[in-house]
């Protein structure tokens, strides 16, 4: 399964691009995506938090991902 993962803020800088095309075994969930990404970019594991938004909503760890999903990494927010 090919996923497009969009990146903002510090995750964009860590990965060095605004979007990451990512290959995962089918029926992977949010938790396994995070694990894979942290393995490949250890800097992501040093963040205060790293959430994942799927189709514009914060996603629970066990949400199973689909190729059509809009997947976005959400590092610690700091608006306001």
């Amino acid at each position, binding site marked *: 399964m090919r996923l497009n993962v969009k990146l*903002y803020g510090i995750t964009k800088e860590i990965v060095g691009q605004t979007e990451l095309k990512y290959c995962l075994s089918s029926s992977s969930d949010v938790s396994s995506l995070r694990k894979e990404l942290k393995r490949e970019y250890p800097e992501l594991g040093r963040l205060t938090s790293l959430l994942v938004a799927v189709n*514009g909503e914060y996603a629970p760890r066990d949400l199973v991902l689909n190729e059509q999903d809009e997947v976005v990494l959400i*590092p610690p*927010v*700091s*608006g306001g």
Partner: protein
Amino acid sequence: MIVLTSKPINVQRAIDEVSSAEAGAVVVFIGTVRNMTDGKRVVKLDFEAYDKMAISELEKIVNEAVDQWPIKNISVIHRTGNLRISDIAVVIAASSPHRKEAFRACEFVIDTLKETVPIWKKEFFEDEEIWVAAHP
């Protein structure tokens, strides 16, 4: 009214949006770029937002406030892009028939915005750049 904008924020617009003859109280929060963070001189700020989700998360917060208190209206305007010292980063205006509720709702919106809305702030100091809150 919920707005993300890369242009300077007009406070009066946020106030006008929530003002009405039934609302005796309007409470406004204005967040501006401070010249110092932890004793270090700030040169400028950059705000980046995941726009679509930032808007939908702000809508949730506003709806939650309106459910929780007898509020007439709430407006939120958040700036994105490059900001200088004293520029306005965010304005929240809440109106209600009585003042207590407007204070509670306005503070709830800014507190929750800072916890859940996907907007990221990079602070530029003289010698470094830091994504705020990114690291423990």
